[in-house]
C-alpha cells in the first residue's frame, strides 16, 4: 500500500494505492488519524487494486471518529475492486461514498 496526502478545497485528501491489507493496517490507521486532526477528510480509492476487511474496518473506524469530532469523512472514486468489498461488507451504506473527488469536495 502507498499513500499520498494533500490539502485541497478545505479538505485533506488521502490517496491510497496498491493493495490495502492487514499488513498495512498500522500505517493506514496512522495516516487516517493524522488526517482527521486537520478537519474534513476524503479518501481517494481510485488506485486501490485490492482491499481486505481490515482496510474496510479502518475506514469505518475513521468515519465514526469523524462524526465524534464533528467533521466529515468521505470515500471518493472507489475502484472496481474497492467497490466490490464495500458492497460485500455493506459498508457502502454506512460510509459516505462519492463517485469522484470533485463530488466529494463539493458535497
Amino acid at each position, binding site marked *: 500500500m502507498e499513500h499520498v496526502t494533500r490539502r485541497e478545497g478545505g479538505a485533506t485528501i488521502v490517496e491510497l494505492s496498491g*493493495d490495502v*491489507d*492487514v*499488513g498495512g493496517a498500522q500505517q493506514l490507521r496512522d495516516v487516517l488519524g493524522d488526517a482527521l486532526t486537520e478537519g474534513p477528510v476524503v479518501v481517494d480509492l481510485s488506485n486501490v487494486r*485490492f482491499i*481486505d*476487511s*481490515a482496510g*474496510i*474496518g479502518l475506514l469505518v473506524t475513521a468515519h465514526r471518529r469523524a462524526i465524534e469530532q464533528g467533521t466529515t469523512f468521505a470515500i471518493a472514486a472507489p475502484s*472496481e*475492486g474497492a467497490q*466490490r*468489498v464495500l458492497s*460485500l*461488507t455493506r459498508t457502502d451504506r454506512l460510509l459516505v461514498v462519492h463517485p469522484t473527488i470533485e463530488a466529494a469536495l463539493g458535497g
Partner: protein
Amino acid sequence: MKAPAAHLVLPSTYDALADAREWIASHARAAGFADRDVLDLELVVTEAVSNVVRHAYGGEPGREVELDARTEPGLIVLRITDHGEPFIGGRRVAPDGSGGYGLGLIAQLVDSMTRSADEGGNTLELVKQRPGGSS
C-alpha cells in the same frame, strides 16, 4: 499456461499475504476464472490466512501456513492448514473479540466451507465454482 505449484507454505506473517494472493490468482486464472472471481478468491485467501496468523498463531511469527489448491472442471478447491490453536466451538474467537467482517466475507464468496481439525492440523477447505458452467 504453466500451472503454479499446488502446494505453498508461507510464514505466519502478514507480509505473506501478497504472495498468497499472487498464488491463488495464478491458479484461478489458469482454471479460467474471470477477473472479478479472481479478485474474490484473492480476498478469500487474504481473509483466511489473516485469520490463521492472528487467531491460530496469535501473531507468533515463524510458524507455517500451508495452502493447497486443486482445480477441477468448473471449480477450485482451496485448503488452508495451520498447526496452531484449534477452532473453538466451530469458530475461532479472538481473545479481545475483535475482527468481524473476515469470516462473513469468506462465507459470502465461496460455495462451500468446511472446517476440520486433527493431529495433522486445522484445515479450512473452501470450494468456489466458476460461474458459467463446468467447461
